[in-house]
């Protein structure tokens, strides 16, 4: 079995006197897709921030690509792409300029070509010269995903990727996630509710009292009666 992309050991985070995460043992295998569910303030964003190296854990540690996130070297940061609540986009710059900047930042060989190709992929080719300030939420989110993926990461961290998106916007993001998975990327997303993407099997987790635990089947049935579709897991 391949080495896990993400592995946490007794991971915990306390802000001041408020614990948010505790004793978390979580794994994500290469090429796998997982969703972590939780309400507001349950620590979903904190988990992603720790895994991406932005925030240091209070207890325990996390290994991403086998490396401790506290000592995150540039080599590993290069392999991660993150989509957050915040768009990470500069409103006064155009879509193209934003993408070119990030491509440059990550040292992509031909930044303009990469920017153009990704604008194409996310369906924003006609809006390349528009300032991000003028974008709708759906367009912004698509551009944010392009920004996160332009440097070819092996791990995508998505914080509530469908928040405030309409059906059309969600559909586009879904297909972007699917194509990332098809290219061998591993995906970890957080959300309020489990979501589905055709032909993709997600491992579902939930944050219960600060711990990341596999989502209980009966828990979900109790909540709404909707059955989770049983698809064979991607990695055995």
């Amino acid at each position, binding site marked *: 079995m391949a080495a896990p992309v993400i592995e946490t050991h007794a991971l915990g985070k306390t802000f001041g006197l408020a614990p948010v995460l505790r004793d978390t043992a979580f794994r994500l295998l290469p090429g796998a897709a997982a969703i972590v569910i939780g309400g507001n303030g349950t620590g979903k964003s904190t988990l992603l921030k720790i895994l991406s190296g932005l925030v240091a854990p209070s207890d325990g540690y996390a290994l991403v690509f086998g490396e401790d996130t506290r000592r995150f070297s540039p080599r590993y*940061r290069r392999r991660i792409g993150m989509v957050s609540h915040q768009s990470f986009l500069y409103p006064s710059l155009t879509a193209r300029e934003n993408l070119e900047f990030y491509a440059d930042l990550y040292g992509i060989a031909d930044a303009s070509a990469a920017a153009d190709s990704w604008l194409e992929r996310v369906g924003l080719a006609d809006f390349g010269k528009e300032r991000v300030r003028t974008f709708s939420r759906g367009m912004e989110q698509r551009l944010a995903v392009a920004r996160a993926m332009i440097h070819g990461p092996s791990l995508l961290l998505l914080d509530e990727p469908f928040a405030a998106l309409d059906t059309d916007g969600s559909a586009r993001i879904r297909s972007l996630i699917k194509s990332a998975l098809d290219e061998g990327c591993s995906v970890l997303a957080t959300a309020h509710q489990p979501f589905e993407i055709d032909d993709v099997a997600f491992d579902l987790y939930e944050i219960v009292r600060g711990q990341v635990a596999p989502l209980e089947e009966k828990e979900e049935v109790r909540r709404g009666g909707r059955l989770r579709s049983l698809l064979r897991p991607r990695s055995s």
Partner: protein
Amino acid sequence: MRPFAAILRKDLMLELRSGRTTTALVSLALLVLVVLAFALDRAIAGGSDAAAGAMWVALVFAGMLGATRVMLAEQENGCLRALLLSPVDRATLYAAKLAAAFIFMLGAALAAMILAILFFNLEFSNAFGTLSVALLLGALGFSALATLLAAISARARGGELLLPILIVPLFVPALIAGVKASASALSGAQFAAAGQWFGVLAAFDVLFVAAGYLLFEHVVGEE
């Protein structure tokens, strides 16, 4: 090298689009000098010492505004986080932010110099070279200091008050040296006469650019 250029270019592009920071800096420099011109009325006849002082007062206050904005520009939409997530190392990030702050301060310095000479009725002559060097060195030291501390004041409660309180005592040596060197230049003395002051300015700059390089990673992270 490439990330450094990318970040600096992005900051300059942003400024070119909005022009807000430069406008703010130049306006503040102008306003400070106007206030001083009226407040130090009799000094106008006397000239060079008052003018040198006024120039540096304008520079310091404009600088505090400018430096904060360089860091604050990254707060919108969480772009600072995106920079921290990227492979860019913190020292390079510091260098890029320092360069941007320095360029903005040069604008303020130029405005302050021209306006001070105008308001205080001074001769331009060959003092220009020495004066420019003094302002340049001062702007560099101030930018180094302010870029490091602006990150701090952005996070703490009551940050806008905190930044001046932190910067001013730390900037004192450069302020003393800068004003003395400028006054010397404006009164027509040669470069060498102000030699020791330039020594102090240079030492200050080296010290704080190095300190910034080494310590920036500690102020720019998150919880």
